[in-house]
């Protein structure tokens, strides 16, 4: 099916124009750039290799409106995990897309003309907010890399429309990193001499490094707990780094070119540092054309880095391969995990993450939105801590890597950020006000009649209730009456007023009440009401048998109807057959009348169906909630019900006929209910007018 981008109509595969509105339809099939498989139009990802088919930017704007029927297949995914070579080839392909070799020419040019780029400036503020760093005034050394950025992006956009989320973070990060890294740089110093020695120069050469890991390090769900831990840990550690910065800064004046060989060496030997793939671009710029490729390609591994120790440390291990352009060997590298490093790397970075989360929703810049898509941090934060124990200390690296890669590929922004923000909109003050006012008015309307007596309404009328009263009145004494007690405490405030008079009437008629319920709270609710309506509690045993809860809906009812004697009395625990009042009652056949007290439509239906099968002749009456009056009336019309009390009104009418001591209470109830109903009717009309005139607020 192809969905018309204009009217959303589904059109036959292969149609060129929409049947509904004649609008031209998008091309039928999409050939996957990766594996060449043909995919149905509307696929965002290749069904075979899961490569992205439609560049994120080219997603039609309609995508923003959820109303638009977006192709269901759009979210279909390959149901088998990808094979190694596939994902690796995917990665390499990424590299090709992201990093055209032409970069290098660009760089020198940048070096001549430094420090005009708007893009970094845009991104800096956010980072500032998170890293509380004086990046506002970029030091001269900062400029070369900064200057580099725009070029980068230009290069990026050229081959592949979207700067894919992975790509931006490194770039956008670069500027403040010259400052941001100061903290991270420090901790390693004591433990690992080689890295430490490396870091300063490398810091000088280019400030880009650790920024990427910062974002990358956030696992979609897994590592969050660690982060939280990290949050506490890092607070104390902040000061020591603070002093550190000076050496790197001092080193800055030294011409970058000097470091390159060293840096490369570090890359080979010191895992910790290589963690910053995007570190490479600048040196690359200064050194050789080949490096351009790896530099870009390495922007991808960060995706793999999900903040799990294993993965984190693998990322560095990988880079040498990429430089060597021997991706096939990547998996083996997983062996060389160096857990020791992780803490150092993570700790300095964590606090920033914590902050970043808060900022997220407010971000609008393309890059940051990309970032956000990349790292669902907030998710992690509100996913319960249980996520952590689930992760084995050592998950199968290949599998995780594959999942993470897909993760990275898939979580590129489908929709442009603005809409995403509307989602996060806080509750409107208008809402709170409306809610409060309605509440107050409602409560006032209910309370008023209880405080001051309002002779507002006339006597209630309910013909069906009067009819029922007559029916019950002709009930011969000592008749066994089966009562289906289908309501619990949630409905008892209404249903007790419906059932109360009926029950009392039956008791007055000296009927024997046999109570059953398919609701687990039914029997208890029944006891509560029966106790209140039974004049002399000592009579209970010869008036009432509460046969308790019947599990299994219709089947349970069927079974019970067939074998009432086989049940046990819920309150006394005696077998029903031993109760005097059950002596001559073995099944529905021996029952003189059935009363269904129902608050739910299904209950009424079930009982009527089962009784009509088991004993069509027994008269059935019902006391129902106002809620199911609509659904019950047909049964009354069809004669399946001989009488019915519906809702409080019905109950009140019945009560009047019976004339018990409860009249006063019913009066309160009716008046309060009436007032409340009037109030709500008024509110409804007023609301309607307001919104008709005012129009919809959004």
């Amino acid at each position, binding site marked *: 099916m192809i969905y018309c981008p204009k009217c959303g109509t589904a059109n036959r595969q292969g149609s060129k124009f929409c049947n509904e509105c004649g609008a031209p339809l998008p091309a039928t099939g999409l050939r996957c750039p990766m594996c060449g498989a043909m995919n149905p139009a509307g696929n965002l990802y290749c069904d075979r290799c899961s490569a992205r088919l439609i560049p994120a930017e080219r997603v039609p704007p309609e995508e923003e409106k959820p109303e638009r029927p977006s192709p269901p297949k759009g979210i279909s995914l390959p149901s088998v995990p990808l094979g190694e070579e596939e994902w690796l080839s995917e990665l390499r392909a990424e590299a090709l897309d992201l990093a055209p070799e032409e970069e290098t020419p660009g760089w020198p040019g940048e070096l001549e003309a430094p420090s005009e780029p708007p893009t970094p400036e845009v991104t800096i503020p956010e980072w500032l907010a998170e890293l509380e760093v004086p990046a506002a005034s970029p030091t001269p050394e900062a400029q070369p890399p900064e200057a580099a950025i725009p070029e980068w992006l230009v290069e990026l956009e050229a081959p592949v429309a979207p700067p894919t989320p992975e790509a931006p973070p490194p770039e956008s990060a670069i500027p403040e990193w010259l400052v941001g890294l100061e903290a991270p740089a420090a901790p390693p110093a004591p433990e690992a001499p080689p890295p430490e020695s490396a870091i300063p120069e490398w810091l000088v050469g280019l400030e880009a490094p650790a920024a990427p890991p910062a974002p990358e390090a956030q696992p979609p769900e897994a590592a969050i707990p660690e982060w939280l831990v990290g949050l506490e840990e890092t607070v104390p550690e902040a000061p020591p780094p603070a002093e550190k910065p000076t050496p790197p800064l001092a080193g800055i004046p030294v011409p970058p070119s000097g470091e390159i060989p060293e840096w490369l060496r570090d890359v080979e030997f010191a895992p910790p540092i290589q963690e910053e793939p995007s570190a490479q671009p600048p040196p690359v710029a200064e050194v050789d054309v080949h490096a351009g490729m790896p530099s870009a390609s390495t922007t991808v591994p960060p995706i793999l880095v999900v903040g799990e120790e294993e993965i984190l440390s693998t990322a560095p291990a990988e880079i040498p391969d990429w430089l060597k352009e021997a991706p096939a060997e990547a998996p083996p590298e997983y062996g060389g995990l160096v857990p020791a490093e992780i803490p150092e790397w993570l700790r300095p970075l964590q606090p920033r993450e914590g902050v970043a989360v808060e900022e997220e929703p407010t971000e609008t810049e393309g890059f940051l939105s990309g970032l956000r898509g990349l790292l669902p941090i907030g998710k992690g934060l509100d996913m*319960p801590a249980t996520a952590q124990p689930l992760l084995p200390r050592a998950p199968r690296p290949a599998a995780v890597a594959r999942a993470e890669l897909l993760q990275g590929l898939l979580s590129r922004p489908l929709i442009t950020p603005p809409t995403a923000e509307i989602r996060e909109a806080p509750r409107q003050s208008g809402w709170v006000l409306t809610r409060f006012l309605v509440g107050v008015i409602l409560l006032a309307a209910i309370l008023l009649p209880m405080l001051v007596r309002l002779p507002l309404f*006339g006597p209630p009328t309910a013909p069906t209730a009067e009819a029922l009263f007559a029916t019950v009145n002709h009930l011969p004494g000592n008749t066994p009456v089966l009562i289906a007690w289908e309501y619990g405490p949630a409905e008892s405030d209404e249903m007790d007023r419906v059932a109360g008079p009926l029950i009392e009437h039956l008791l007055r008629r000296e009927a024997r009440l046999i109570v059953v319920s398919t609701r687990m709270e039914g029997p208890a609710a029944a006891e509560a009401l029966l106790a209140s309506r039974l004049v002399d509690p000592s009579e209970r045993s010869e008036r009432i048998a509460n046969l308790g809860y019947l599990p299994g809906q219709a089947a349970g009812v069927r079974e019970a109807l067939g074998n009432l004697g086989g049940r046990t009395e819920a309150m006394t625990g005696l077998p029903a057959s031993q109760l005097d009042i059950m002596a001559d009652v073995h099944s529905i056949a021996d029952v003189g009348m059935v009363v269904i007290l129902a608050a739910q439509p299904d209950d009424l239906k079930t009982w009527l169906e089962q009784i009509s099968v088991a004993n069509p002749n027994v008269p059935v009456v019902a006391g129902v909630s*106002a809620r199911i009056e609509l659904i019950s009336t047909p049964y009354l019309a069809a004669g399946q019900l001989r009488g019915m009390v519906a809702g409080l009104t019905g109950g009140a009418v019945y009560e009047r006929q019976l004339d018990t001591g409860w009249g006063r209470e019913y009066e309160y109830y*009716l008046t309060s209910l009436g007032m409340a109903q009037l109030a*709500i009717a008024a509110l*409804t009309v007023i609301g309607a007018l307001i919104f008709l005139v005012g129009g919809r607020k959004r």
Partner: protein
Amino acid sequence: MDRLVKRILPTSIAVGTGLLVLLGYLLPVPPLASVRDELIRWAVIIAAFAFILGFFNLLRVHSGRARKPGGIYSVILILTALTSLVLTLAALLIPSLRFLGDWWFRYVLSPLQATVAGLIAFVLAVAAFRLLRHRREAGVLVFLVAALVVLLGTLPLPAPAGNWLANLRTWWMNVPAMAGMRGLLIGVGLGVLLVGLRVLTGSDRPYSD
């Protein structure tokens, strides 16, 4: 073997039992009907075990949440759940302790449940007030009128208006609303029928991969 456990056996169980029960409905002759009821009884017993599953899921979720800010509520929830479990069990198994369960049911469970049910009235009132804010189709007026008629029709208002409204309400309930309701019910019935067929033909297997 794995496939057998994971797919083949479950599917055959579902299809087999399903067909038997359905047959019991369509040909309610003694053997079939009793087989149907037996299978349904089994389902009820199995479903009861699901309650245990649910109980532990609840405990797991909230013991996790208890460690997060606002965890106090989860702690309270767990404590109440255990108290309720113990009291009710005691009441059901030891007649002399019945009063405990009754007290709990009457003074804690009932008021809470009933009041939350009462809140529905409030949220519905708010919804009624904002009705036209969200729904801008012509039909919304029908809805509005229906709601008002049914709401006011129950009121014992003074004679002329009152009776007229009451009659209108009755008519509305028995004619237009009835028509809509029946259309809805039949349609849902058809939907159920088709999903049921998918399950009973084993083409939908929500119980296995």
